[in-house]
């Protein structure tokens, strides 16, 4: 019998998706499926940002969640002062991008040649710093942001209401994913980034500045984080310091699990991984047989991560090293 790690990636990806969907339909858990897909697209957005940074700089970016939280805080401050929603969203994205650029300039670039594990600790430090600043600005209280549209049940597949805000979130993931796929496969800049991640020296030799590309990918990742934060915050209800990084709303670990599940370097993998993690998590939450375990969703995420790393470290869609 072939080992799980040796099977072709298409087969494993397809088979696991089919198994998950079948299990859910058989067990009558269509609400877990729908809700899971909504959360899955949120995790997918975070995972996409993580994959982007990992592909270009080989860094596990623990500050990815905080890019989103910084945007959420900017959005909240401006909405409190009566600024129109769209303008507030734009300002939130700009704030996140500024934060991403600062991170790249002040932390990542000085550590360009440092071991990757040092960079991981550094990004965790950036996340902690951002959480501290959020405590300073907003205090420890939980805050709320109103949704873009209050409509709650325009469509309801399997009898589960899907609100407009959730639809916007899913649409954002699909649109951004499409743009990124086009960008990385068809444009010169996108191909240059891929090149720089694979052969930095050769890329410099053909006259492309690897450092400038590095700033650009951090801007892109910050933008993805900002979109994930801004669109998800009205769905979750409330947010506090470290909204996307820590606590029950934290998307960083599910996002990482999704990215690892997808293969860490594969963007379609981040989508699939996000969907699987979201569905598995909401399945665990709704399963009465698992009710004796406290926090079943977090246990599920840990198990997924452990199993993937133990059995198939290259993920479902990643290339074998």
């Amino acid at each position, binding site marked *: 019998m072939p080992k799980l790690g040796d099977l072709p990636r298409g087969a494993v990806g397809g088979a696991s998706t089919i198994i998950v969907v079948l299990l859910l339909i058989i067990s009558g858990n269509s609400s877990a499926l729908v809700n899971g897909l909504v959360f899955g697209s949120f995790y997918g957005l975070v995972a996409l940002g993580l994959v982007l940074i990992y592909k270009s700089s080989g860094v*596990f970016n623990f500050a990815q969640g905080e890019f989103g939280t910084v945007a959420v805080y900017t959005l909240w401050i401006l909405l409190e002062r009566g600024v129109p929603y769209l303008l507030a969203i734009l300002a939130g994205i700009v704030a996140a991008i500024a934060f991403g650029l600062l991170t790249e300039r*002040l*932390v990542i670039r*000085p*550590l360009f040649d*440092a*071991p*990757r*594990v*040092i960079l*991981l*600790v*550094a990004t*965790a*430090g*950036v*996340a*902690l*710093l951002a*959480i*501290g*600043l959020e*405590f*300073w*600005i907003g*205090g420890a209280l939980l805050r709320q942001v109103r949704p873009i549209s209050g409509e709650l049940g325009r469509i309801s597949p399997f009898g589960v209401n899907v609100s407009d805000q959730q639809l916007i979130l899913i649409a954002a993931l699909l649109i951004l994913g499409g743009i990124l796929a086009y960008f990385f496969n068809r444009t010169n800049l996108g191909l240059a980034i891929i090149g720089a991640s694979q052969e930095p020296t050769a890329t410099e030799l053909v006259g492309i500045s690897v450092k400038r590309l590095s700033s650009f990918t951090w801007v892109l990742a910050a933008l993805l984080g900002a979109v994930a934060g801004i669109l998800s915050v009205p769905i979750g209800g409330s947010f506090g310091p*470290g909204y996307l*990084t*820590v*606590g*029950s709303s*934290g998307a960083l*670990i599910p996002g*990482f*699990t999704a990215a*690892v599940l997808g293969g860490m370097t594969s963007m379609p993998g981040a989508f699939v991984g996000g969907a699987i993690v979201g569905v598995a998590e909401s399945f665990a939450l709704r399963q009465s047989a698992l009710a004796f*375990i*406290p*926090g*079943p*969703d*977090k*246990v599920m*995420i*840990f198990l997924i*991560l*452990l199993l993937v*790393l*133990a059995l198939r*470290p290259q993920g479902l869609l990643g290339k074998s090293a």
Partner: protein
Amino acid sequence: MIKRAVSDATEEISVSQVVDPIPQEGHQAPSDDFRPGAKGWLARAAAGVPLAALVLLFPLTQLDFVLTKYTRGITYAIIALSLNVLIGYTGQISLGHQAFVGIGAFTSAYMVSVAGQEFPIAVLSAMAVGAVQALILGLVALRVRGLYFALLTLAYGLLAEASLFKIPALTGGAAGQPAPKPPGFDTSHRYYYLCLALLGVVLWVDHRMMATKGGRALLALRENPRVASTFGINVKAFTLFAFAVSGVFAGLGGALYAHNESQVTSVLFNFQLALLFILMTVVGGLRSRTGVVIGGVFFALIGYLIEEIPHLPVIGTVLKFLVGILGWLFVDTLGLPELRIEVAELVIGPILLLLTLTQFPGGIGQQLRPFIQWFAGRPFDIHDRGAKEVQITDVRA
């Protein structure tokens, strides 16, 4: 002066040897035959006595609630030493160390308050649980290294926070588990000295471990597991050994922490705490025992220091003036909220970490190295920064 007397030809060389204080690359460690004279030992004692008095006698003059903070500093130092074994000696990063410490704390509290065991048995079982947990994690670490291992420990910390610490039988629910101080050490002062003694034991164990074959094997492993195994080092056994030692330290630190607080609740052991543990170990200086202990104590006391320093003479006045200017700039002019102490803690720590990583990778330990070496009976050399740059090795991820 003597060298001036020799001929012109040699003068140039000898003067350059005497004057040039900047060490060349591959800075030579002073030879081992150096022994300080009577005056040298006297100077070391004169410097050491105030330091010893600060640690041993000064706490006697302090109130109970202040002493609880000092004791917390000692427990943090033990936890930092535990992380130092993992990050410094094996090169693996644990982002879920709050789970180890938390489980140690709850085990000890449970053994005393629910199972009705004696304090030594409770602490020993916390250490044993820590070792078992760490061994399991070590088995994982044999397969998964570097970035992925860090990620896995992070997920484990989250699992502990969301699931293990929500088991009411172990943690006593939202109210927390009471953890009384042991009989005989039931005042804050006595408990302080107990923890101090145990910190001494931990330091001694760490020193013995690194001074023997096992320690050299670990360092070789961190540099390159393949080369190490070629030289006959048992990679699996030594990695597991290091993890077990780290787990025992973490369990001990957690247990002492629990009994110091008298009541442990699950909210204490969150993700920020795990990051704080990393902060204090890295800022303290990996592989430098003194640095790591200073880092642990500093980060445990940072809030207290921010509170107390303004009351000191001179330094306090200068600081108050600076804070006044900053307050005027940020609070009055820009309309930002006031920077309270618990917030300042959260902001200062990460800034120190980022500065350490980008500017002084050896942390406090490397900066203090000349003084530490001097105390240990070597000549004072202000440029001594250790054999080589301190860095976490590049593990292939």
